[in-house]
């Protein structure tokens, strides 16, 4: 392969092609899109958490300057519109279906969280719409807000017809086997875990521009979506009753999602609905406050964990009982996140013969909670990796060695866990060894002593995580209550001059697909990266695909591209055979050239492309013109990235401030397409995980008001909170996809919170501190030290 192209193929750290347009300010986001005659919509939101709406008087507002219309829940009901739906519904442990209360896109008679949509005000300008909204007189009859996860089940019902404010009560695993393990156990470890609630905070808030073309009776929606095809399906088929072919959904450049832009929210649907009803294009862009109040939050679990060890300190059983706060309404993956994306991961990287888990999904007067970077897997990893540290301490072992003792051994793959998943491949010890070497684990105590001399408490914390990504085999999804398939599509379109457009059903909102997917093409076809264009995000152009989340884009979407490329090469060979008057079977394709084996007779890729579209003498009975292939790829299994992250912290006991002083990780993501992009994903994931562990908390008060509804109160991690992160990789190639890849988008966010908290607890353990909840704020740490000292003095 020519030198230049080898440096663009698989394994090369090619600079991100998309960054040029971002850096020169030419990214095209939804808010950059304007339509002639567009109206602006402002959503009047509920200021109270739980209330019946007694009346809405919109008369004054309707007369205000610039106002065209005000729509409310009554209009939604009159037009018989549906609400957002759940894409995956697990069955209750008693065999019944979960509770899925309706979610009207504008509140109908009742509001259930602060921020719930009460009215949509359409006006010539956003200022006019906003001002008019202030003139709407809504009378609420308030009820006490239900915000506490622990007690919500005992409160009045938030939705009529629900029991115990519980959406579902689900279980997985063998309870009898686990009970038996606890009966036999030498040691039982009990840990109480709180996984704090966080807000995704994508840099670009959600936005929508919708228009209806009377001529061809067709809608177009531009929106900030991670999965425009799913958005089209949900809005068209389930919410607004629009034939799919009559709705085009475009997700242009999108500034981050982290899960929060998977779901269809009421706003986008209202824009589409109103575009026809009012005969004008409709524009909406959330401001930051609306993003805090209205975007799906993440995490928010309480778990009781019990681990059983035998006399050799081997784990023989695990039981986890979890309450998951899902908020006032369900969104697309709200129910699968705490169940199948969480419960199935509880074996971690450990050989655990018996596991049982029960998860209850709880309704509260808070905004909905759904998948957030990692989706269920960070929650599972956090509780397991914290428990591993507590257990190691309880049995007097070094946490690294306790983990090593319980690792699934290298020769046990494929490994069937006690919880449905089968890990295809992995090798966990070298990851641990490498990370320990990177941070000089064995000399930690001397660093601790040195810090102690400066009056600081130093600690080290390990997390050896696994995740299941590359979501997902449709058959498995279907068997577990999924209502979607999770294959991916790709179209490879070779153009007459040999340039190539790849149309993918995934969506890039920061992940760098323009570059990595193009590298796949360079590698297979031997063409220059500048000849490759990646097209995503437009339902009129791409084939039906499932979008980007669950670290699936490369493992599933990339494999689909690879398969379509294989088809292109296969057809290219037939064309070459025809042109070179050889047998199809004698054509070889290498380095961008089709050659008759054993001869120097060859055709370049470009010549084949041209002749495919200028087929002057094609034998049409066996060779169609054109060079364009489609592949749909449905994976055989999840992929299982794993690795070791180790954090080192220094704590100032006089203030409780935790400083992150070192971070190393060694991950196994299978083969790497672009190591630089992978490292970037790991950095971002770690930053979000450290954010959750040290800074971030979505705090509601007893009245259901979100106290942390701005950056003045919601603390995001910042660059100056981090040391330089040391990131390395080892590879065991995935066994069931063509590229041997596993996915890396969520790993950092999954691995990092327990590493950080384990380090904090480790730092404080000489003082007698045994636990700290996330986020480990200065006051919490300081208080833990005070309490431990008081206890020690008693």
């Amino acid at each position, binding site marked *: 392969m020519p030198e230049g192209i080898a440096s663009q193929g698989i394994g090369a750290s090619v600079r991100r092609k998309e960054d040029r347009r971002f850096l020169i300010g030419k990214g095209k986001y939804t808010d950059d899109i304007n339509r002639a005659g567009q109206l602006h919509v402002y959503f009047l939101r509920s200021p109270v958490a739980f209330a019946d709406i007694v009346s809405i008087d919109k008369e004054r507002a309707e007369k205000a300057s610039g106002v065209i219309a005000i729509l409310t829940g009554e209009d939604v009901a009159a037009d018989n519109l549906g609400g957002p739906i759940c894409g995956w519904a697990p069955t209750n442990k008693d065999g019944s279906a979960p509770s899925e209360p309706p979610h009207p896109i504008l509140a109908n008679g009742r509001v259930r969280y602060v921020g719930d949509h009460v009215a949509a005000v359409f006006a010539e300008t956003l200022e006019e719409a906003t001002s008019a909204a202030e003139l709407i007189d809504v009378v609420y009859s308030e009820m006490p807000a239900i915000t506490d996860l622990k007690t919500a089940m005992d409160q009045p019902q938030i939705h009529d017809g629900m029991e115990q404010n519980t959406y579902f009560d689900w279980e997985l695993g063998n309870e009898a086997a686990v009970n038996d393990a606890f009966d036999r156990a030498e040691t039982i470890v009990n840990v109480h875990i709180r996984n704090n609630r966080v807000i995704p905070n994508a840099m670009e808030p959600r936005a929508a521009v919708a228009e209806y073309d009377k001529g061809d009776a067709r809608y177009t929606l531009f929106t900030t979506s991670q999965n425009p095809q799913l958005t089209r399906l949900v809005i068209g088929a389930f919410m607004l009753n629009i034939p799919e072919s009559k709705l085009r959904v475009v997700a242009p450049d999108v500034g981050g999602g982290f899960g929060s832009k998977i779901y269809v929210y009421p706003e986008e649907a209202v824009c589409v609905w109103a575009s026809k009803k009012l005969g004008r294009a409709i524009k909406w862009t959330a401001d930051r406050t609306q993003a805090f109040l209205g975007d799906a939050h993440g995490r928010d679990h309480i778990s009781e964990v019990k681990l059983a060890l035998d006399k050799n300190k081997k784990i023989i059983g695990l039981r986890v009982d979890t309450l998951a706060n899902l908020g006032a309404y369900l969104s697309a993956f709200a129910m699968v996140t705490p169940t199948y994306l969480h419960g199935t991961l509880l074996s971690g990287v450990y050989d655990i013969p018996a596991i049982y888990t029960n998860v209850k999904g709880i309704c509260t007067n808070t905004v909905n909670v759904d998948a957030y970077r990692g989706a269920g897997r960070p929650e599972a990893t956090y509780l397991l990796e914290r428990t591993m540290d507590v257990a190691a301490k309880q049995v007097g072992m070094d946490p690294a060695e306790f983990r090593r003792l319980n690792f699934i051994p290298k020769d046990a793959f494929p490994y069937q866990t006690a919880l449905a998943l089968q890990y295809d491949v992995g090798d966990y010890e070298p990851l641990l060894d490498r990370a320990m070497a990177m941070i000089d684990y064995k000399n930690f105590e001397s660093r601790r002593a040195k810090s102690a001399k400066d009056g600081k408490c130093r600690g080290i914390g390990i997390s050896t995580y696994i995740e299941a990504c590359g979501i997902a085999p449709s058959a498995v999804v279907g068997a577990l209550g999924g209502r979607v398939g999770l294959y991916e599509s790709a179209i490879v379109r070779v153009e007459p001059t040999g340039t190539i457009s790849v149309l993918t059903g995934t969506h890039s909102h920061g992940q760098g697909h323009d570059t990595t997917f193009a590298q796949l093409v360079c590698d297979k076809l031997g063409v220059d990266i500048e000849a490759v264009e990646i097209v995503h995000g437009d339902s009129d152009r791409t084939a039906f695909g499932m979008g980007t989340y669950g670290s699936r884009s490369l493992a599933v979407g990339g494999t689909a591209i690879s398969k379509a490329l294989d088809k292109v090469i296969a057809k290219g060979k037939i064309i070459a055979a025809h042109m070179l008057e050889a047998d199809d079977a004698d054509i070889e394709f290498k380095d961008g050239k089709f050659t008759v084996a054993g001869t120097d007779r060859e055709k370049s890729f470009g010549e084949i492309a041209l002749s495919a579209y200028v087929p002057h003498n094609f034998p049409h009975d066996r060779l169609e013109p054109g060079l364009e292939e489609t592949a749909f790829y449905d994976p055989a299994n999840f992929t299982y990235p794993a690795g070791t992250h180790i954090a080192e912290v220094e704590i100032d006991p*006089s203030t409780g401030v935790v400083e992150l002083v070192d971070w190393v990780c060694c991950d196994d993501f299978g083969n790497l397409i672009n190591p630089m992009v992978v490292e970037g994903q790991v950095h971002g994931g770690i930053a979000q995980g450290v954010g959750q562990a040290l*800074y971030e908390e979505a705090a509601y008060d007893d009245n259901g008001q979100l106290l*942390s509804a701005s950056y*003045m*109160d919601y*603390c995001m991690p910042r660059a100056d909170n981090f040391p330089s992160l040391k990131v390395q990789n080892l590879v065991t190639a995935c066994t069931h996809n063509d590229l041997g890849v596993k996915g890396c988008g969520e790993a950092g966010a999954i691995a990092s919170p327990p590493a950080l908290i384990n380090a904090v607890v480790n730092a404080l353990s000489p003082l007698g501190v045994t636990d700290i909840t996330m986020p480990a704020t*200065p006051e919490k740490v300081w*208080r833990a030290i005070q309490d431990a000292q008081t206890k020690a003095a008693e």
Partner: protein
Amino acid sequence: MYSTKYVKARDIDDAVKALKSADDGKFLAGGMTLIPTLKQRLANPDCLVDLSACGLSSIDDEGSAIRIGAMTRHVDVAESALVQKAIPALTHLAAHIGDRQVRNRGTIGGSLANNDPAACYPAALLALGGTVHTQSRSIAAEDYFDGMFETALEEDEIIHAVSLPKPEKAAYVKFPNPASRYAMVGVFVAKFADGVRVAVTGAGEDGVFRAHDLEAALNANFSADAIADGMVSSDGLMSDIHASADYRAHLIGEMTRRAVNACT
């Protein structure tokens, strides 16, 4: 943001006139606090009177004090050789307000007029025993602050400048709120020939205050050791999602110790 009128005043008289002729006018300095408030529709003034052309940006040496014009930006204070020589603690304070963008627009006058309970300058004014000069009078720091976001200023009173006496030594130590990075507790310690003054911001329910107990302890023994644990009561301190009153009380003691050690 509600629509409003914008007037760029030529001088102070012009500014006062413009404000008087409005129903509910507001002076506009750096806009770092006022503009976000307007954007969130938390205020609805019918007129904004921009002070930027009134010639209020200056830093002068007055012998025993320095005098800083109200429209002097944080960045100008932070980079002033004169301030660095006279009151290095003030340089440090200004250099740690907000971020670069905020420091390039925010002004000392705006900060003192706004009197945010978590702002930094109020601690400097109070600890240094400074004076606020307006078009009609001079107000001693002691008489200037009047609780959270409240001051002795009349509606149409413009801060011209502030005078800050030069201490023997001083230091400002801020424990930033992790989210906003305003002061969760900020302590300004200033040592003068006639005694020590300690002002605390970010913590008090009524905004900035002088910590008389700490002053007494430091007057007896100007050393970090003079500040014992538990010397600061949590009475009258704020509690919020970031810090309880108890923790703030502890931080006041700790930041005071650090300030004493950092005094130059």
